[in-house]
């Protein structure tokens, strides 16, 4: 018997991951972190946050807790939602007047793809 290796690849893996996380977030299942700002909260997954933001990564690493609650200062709830949307889906629609503030918040939270001086800038498409 030769130990021949087979390469199994699911072409839809990334799509599936994205949609699955999205579903999990929508259903709030397995959420393990609560983000709060402006008196409102939204739940998310530590894994996703850590994967998408070194800021959250270090914050969550420093505070190992089953379900931490992160109360963000000076962050608009609207922007927080948009940032989460971007983290989970990789894209988000932001109105033009909100864009500077949004990017600023994203920079503060070090959201990958929005904040870092990126190898490739995310393409900003104009819609509507």
């Amino acid at each position, binding site marked *: 018997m030769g130990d021949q290796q087979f390469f199994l690849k699911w072409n839809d893996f990334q799509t599936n991951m994205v949609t699955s996380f999205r579903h999990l977030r929508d259903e709030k299942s397995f959420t393990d972190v609560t983000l709060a700002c402006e*008196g409102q*909260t939204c739940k998310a997954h530590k894994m996703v946050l850590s994967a998408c933001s070194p800021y959250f990564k270090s914050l969550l690493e420093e*505070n190992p807790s089953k379900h*931490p609650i992160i*109360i963000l*200062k000076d962050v608009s709830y609207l922007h927080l939602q948009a940032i989460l949307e971007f983290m989970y889906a990789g894209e988000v629609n932001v109105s033009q007047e909100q864009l500077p503030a949004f990017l600023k918040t994203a920079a503060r939270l070090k959201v990958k793809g929005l904040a870092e001086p990126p190898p490739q800038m995310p393409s900003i498409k104009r819609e509507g």
Partner: protein
Amino acid sequence: MYPGSTFEGVLPESQLRKMGSSEGQQTFCLKWNHHKTNLVEILEALIKVETYVDCTLVVDDQVTFKAHRVVLAANSPYFQSILADVPMDHCSILFPGVKDFEMRALLEYMYTGEVNVTQAHIPRIMKVAEQLEVKGLFDMTELRRRPGSSERTPAASPPRVVPAAPSSVSPPVSNSRWPPPLTAPVLSAAYDSADMNPLKRKKLSSMLATRDTPILRNVLAQATPIDSSQPMSLVCHPVNQESTRLHSNGSAHESERPVSPQRPFDYRPRRLSSRASSPHYNRSDRSEDAHSPYTERSFEDDNQRSFHSSPPPANFQQDVRAGLAPYVPPQQKPEWKRYKQYTRSDIMSAIECVRNGMSALQASRKYGVPSRTLYDKVKKLGITTSRPMSRGVKRESNGAAFPYGLSGTSGSEDGTPTTPLIDPSFLQQALEGATRDGGREALHAMALAAAAHAALTPRTPPRSSPQSPRSPAPHDDDHVEDLSVARRRDPDPPSGVIVPPRNFALDCGSERD
């Protein structure tokens, strides 16, 4: 029994309260006066040793604070909503961007209702408080946004936290809706206890603050005659009373009732003569001495109370909700009134005049000696006065005005009221004032006086300098006289509606010494 506990069932209260009871099945109210304060006290003690804490607050630089979720939730609707759907054994709350001093201050505020902060920190703390919707701090910012708000807002400083001393926060300008509090600068040295800790302070103040059930009134009314033999000087001074509101969270509306608008408090130095010399003094007299705590509280307010007490003022709840406890620093001393502003020669001359036929009242006016004191002295010397004081009538009027017999009678004017009955609400206010002014010993003494279980035996502490506002210098001889006078003169129980046998208690008290 524990000093603060009263077995209230002792008093069948069918007379006092509708109890939804049928014949033969009387309902009794068992109430521990210290329950609320005990609860607060315990929580505060628990947080100090971090017992039963169930959440960790993490701020910048990995500084962590332990806390009880229930306290956080109780103090902030924001926390309440966040913590409601986080059913974990122990949760961490991270506050990136919040400094440790901010969180420390807010936690102390949430646990004790007050905190000392430096002026420089106020804006930041208030911002965090607003974000976290900390009750008292957050609600006030809501009020500030309201256009009708008449609060004077110093620039660059939060609305009702007026910076006064470098390391403290003082109350805002006194709001005319609230009666000026009364403080007790002079108290018996007998009660010069060890330093009161804040726990005790809170405990005592809310003990008095929560006394407005009929039963409790009755109990206190019974208690007062015994303890009211303590000399006490209660002096008005203009300080905002918001901390009272905060402590009492709405249950003490009686003592915090607004001053009636047509009689705003004025800060004129009070005249020391002829105040409250007669129980029947007319309105012009009274308005002249409107700042006298004795007359003001004992007559008008008690009348108002008995007739209008039930619905608190419309703005009351709101104020309570928004009640912030501004800290009055000890540096900000009010103008204490010296409680004795006459000399020995004054009183001797006055006595001489009375001996020669002048009425005690006239003599007291002439020499600036409190008429009550003068009268007692004269009485002791066996001089018959041309115009005896009619205490019986005075009491009667009080009893009728306030059926539970809580109304204070006016005391003697030199600030050592030989008051047989001290209005507990009066005490409460004084207590609050004393708290804020650091007169802890005073506070303690007053609280003791208010509690039914304070020493039955009148104490005779050594005299101290009458000039020192804090140093308790009771005129024990005066008050002993007063008691004896009372005993001689008041053999009959007062004719109020429901009046506990205070004369009896008084007699007991004086008999013992």
